[in-house]
C-alpha cells in the first residue's frame, strides 16, 4: 500500500501527536481517529504500534477498533460511496438505491471494486431527510436518487476520463 518512506513519515506524525497529549491511554479513541486520518485505515501493525506506545495490550486496541463502526481495518477505495440507511431514506427507497449501486458497481456493501476506485458502504442518517433517498460520495450528498440513470451519472463524475 505505502512505501517505507511514507510509512516512516506517518509513524513519526502519529508519534508526535501521541507525545503532544497530556493524557494518553484515556485518549485512545482520539488517537485512533488521528491514525485513521493519516493512514486511511487501521492495519494490524498500526494498532500494534499504538499499543506499544501507550503501553497497553494490543488486544485492548483491537477491541476498541472492532467495536466502533467508524474504524476500518481494510483499506478503502479512492472514492467512498455511502448509502443512507436511515429510516427516512429507507421508507423512500433507500434499499432500492443500495441494490442499484451494488448492481452498477458489481460489489456488495462493505466491499471495494477490484480497480480500487469505489468502496460502497452504508450509514445511518446524514440529516438530509428532505432529499431522501440520498447517497454520499466522498462527503458530497446527492439527493432524490430514484433512477438508475441518475445514479450512473453521479458515479460517472468520479470515474477517470478514458
Amino acid at each position, binding site marked *: 500500500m505505502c512505501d517505507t518512506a511514507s510509512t516512516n513519515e506517518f509513524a513519526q506524525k502519529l508519534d508526535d501527536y501521541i507525545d503532544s497529549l497530556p493524557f494518553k*491511554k*484515556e*485518549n*485512545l*479513541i*482520539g488517537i*485512533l*481517529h488521528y491514525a485513521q486520518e493519516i493512514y486511511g485505515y487501521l492495519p494490524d501493525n498500526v494498532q500494534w504500534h499504538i499499543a506499544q506506545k501507550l503501553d497497553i495490550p494490543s488486544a*485492548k486496541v483491537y*477491541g*476498541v477498533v472492532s*467495536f*466502533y*463502526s*467508524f*474504524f476500518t481495518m481494510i483499506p478503502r477505495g479512492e472514492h467512498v460511496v455511502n448509502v443512507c*440507511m*436511515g*429510516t*427516512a*431514506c*429507507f*421508507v*423512500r427507497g433507500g434499499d432500492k438505491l443500495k441494490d442499484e449501486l451494488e448492481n452498477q458497481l458489481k460489489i456488495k456493501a462493505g466491499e471495494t471494486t477490484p480497480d480500487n476506485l469505489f468502496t460502497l458502504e452504508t*450509514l*445511518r*442518517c*446524514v*440529516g*438530509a*431527510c*428532505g*432529499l*431522501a433517498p*440520498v447517497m454520499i460520495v466522498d*462527503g458530497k*450528498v446527492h*439527493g432524490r436518487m430514484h433512477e438508475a440513470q441518475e445514479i450512473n451519472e453521479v458515479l460517472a463524475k468520479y470515474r477517470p476520463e478514458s
Partner: protein
Amino acid sequence: MKLENTDALNALKAQSLKLIETRRVADSVSTKNAQGLVRHVMVCGGPGCHSSGSPRIAELLEEELERLGLSEQVKVFQPGCFGFCEKGPMIEIHPDNATYCEVSAEDVPTIVEEHFIQGNQVERLLYMDPNTRERFSTNLPFYDGQLRIALRNVGYIAPENILEYIAADGYQALAKVLFRMTPLEVIDVLKESGLRGRGGAGFPTGTKWEFTRRSQADQRYIICNADEGDPGAFMDRSVLEGDPHSVLEAMLIAGAAIGASEGFIYVRAEYPAAIHRLQVAIAQAREYGLLGTAILGSDLNFDIQLKYGAGAFVCGEETALIHSIEGTRGEPSVKPPFPAQKGLWGKPTCVNNVETLANIPPIILKGAEWFSSIGTEKSKGTKVFALAGKVNNVGLVEVPMGTTLRKIIFDIGGGIKQHKTFKAAQTGGPSGGCIPTKYLDTPIDYESLTAIGSMMGSGGLIVLDEEDCMVNIAKFFQEFTMDESCGRCTACRVGTKRLHEILTKITEGTGTLEDLDKMEKLCHIIKDTALCGLGQSAPNPILSTLKYFRDEYIAHIVDKTCPAGVCKSLLRYEITDKCVGCTLCVKKCPMNCITGSLKKIHVIDQERCLKCGACMEQCRVIGAINHH
C-alpha cells in the same frame, strides 16, 4: 478580549445589537420604517439545504451583489437550519420579510435584479400552498403552531459569530446564575420548570442536577450527549450547527449549579460541520473569557473539551458514553451506581442531551413559570421533531408538548405525499413504535406515547403510508438494533438476532402462526432482562406493530401475501389481458423470462422471475402488469 464582569458583557451586547438589528426590527416594524437599514439575506445552512447547494448560492449572491456595488447595503449570512427542509434551499430576506423556496444557483441573478434593484418580490420563488395555490411571502403555514425555544436562534443568528449570540441575549442567563442566584436556586428553577431530558427517557433535569450536586467528591463532570444516533433524527445536529453557544452556556450554568469545573461534549465523528462549529464556538468563548478561570469575574472556573464518537449507537446510553470518553469500548454498565454518583473516572457526572441544554438559558432568563405554562401536565415546554418519510413537508419542527400528531403531520407537515393514505407514524426510532390512525388525535407527551406502545425518543417522527409494509418496518429496526447491540448482555445480543430471523422468515413467506407467539414471548423476555435502554426498548417496534397491525403479519403467514406489496418473496408479477404486446418489458427483463411477440399478450415465467419490477416500471399501459 476577556470580559471581566457583567457590565463588560452588557456593554458588548449593546455594541453588538447593530449586528442583528435588521433581523430584530423585521419582526416588529413594517418594511417602510425599516428603510435605510442594511438588508440581511439569510441563506439556510441546515444539513438539507447545505447538501442541495446552499453554500454555492450564498457565494454567488455575494459575488453578484459585489458586482453591482450593493455589498454595503446587502449582507449575506449562512445561519443554521430554518426547518423547512422540503422546500430547500431557502433564503430569507430581512427586513423585507420575503422567503424564497427551492432556490437554485441559476435564480441568483434574478433575485438580485428583481428584489434588490427593482424592489419587487420574485413571485415564482415564494412558497405556494399546494392545495389553495396561494403564495406566501412570510408567515408560511409550516410555521403555524410551532414555538421555537430550543431552536430560538437556529436560522436566526450567524453561528460562527459569538457577538451575534451575545446580541441575542447570549450569556445573560449565565450572568444571572453567577451573580443573582445561588446554585440551589438554579436547581429549584429547573425543577419547577418541569424540564425533562430530551434524549428519550424524559428524566427530570433538575432532579438529575440535584443528585449530582449532592454526591460528595473533589471533582464533578458535566457531559453533553451529542451522539445523535437515531436514524432519521437531526435535531441535535441542527442545534449544534445553528446555535453552538447555547449548549456551551447551558453547560457553564450546569457547572456553576452542580459544582463542576470540567465539561465534555461527546459528538459524533459523522457530524464534521457540527464539530467545526463547536470548535469555533469554544475558541471564541475562551477568547472572551467565557470559558476558563474566574468567568465574568466570578469564582467559576470551567472549561469544555470535545470528544468524538466513532459510530456506535449504544454510546447514546449514558454509561456507555462515559466508557467511550474514557477510551474504551462503549459498553453500558449496570445502574446503580448512576453516573450522578459514580460516572466519568469514578466521579459524579451529569449527562444531558443537546436539546435539553438548549432549553436551559431561556428558562433561567424567563423563569420556571413561563416554561411550565407551555405543554401538558407532566411534560412541559416544547419538543423538536425531525419530521420525515411520506409527508409533504419534511423538516424540523418544534411544537409545544401536547400537540396532536394530526396537527404535526397534516397541518404543519402538509399531509401525505401524493395524496396517499396515512398508515402509521413511527416515533422514537429503533426504541419506539408505530402509532396507527386511531391515535392521531392523542396529545403527544412522554406519558401518552408510552401508553400507546411507543416513546418520545430523541424526536424522530417518520410518517408511513399505505405502501409501507409494517412487518418490513419492524424488520428494518430489528436489523438496526441487531447491528448496534454491543454484545455485552445475552438478552440483547442473541435475542435481537433471533427476532430478526423470525421476521425474515415471515417476510419470506415461511413464517408460522406459532412464530408470532414465540416472538411476542421473546420480546417480553428481552424487555425484562436486557442490561441497558437499547436492549430493553429494542422489541418496541415489533410489539407495537404486532398490536396494531397483526393482520399484516397474518397476511404474510397465512395468505402468503404482502398487502403493501413490499416483501419481494411474496410478490407475484402478472401480465393481464390489457397488454398491448409492445415488447418493452420483454427487452427490459434482466432474466429474459418474459415471452411474447409484437401485439400478443406476453407471459412471465414465474419460476424464473426475480421480482425486480423492471417490467412494471417500463410498462406504459395502466393495469397491464399487476403485482400482488
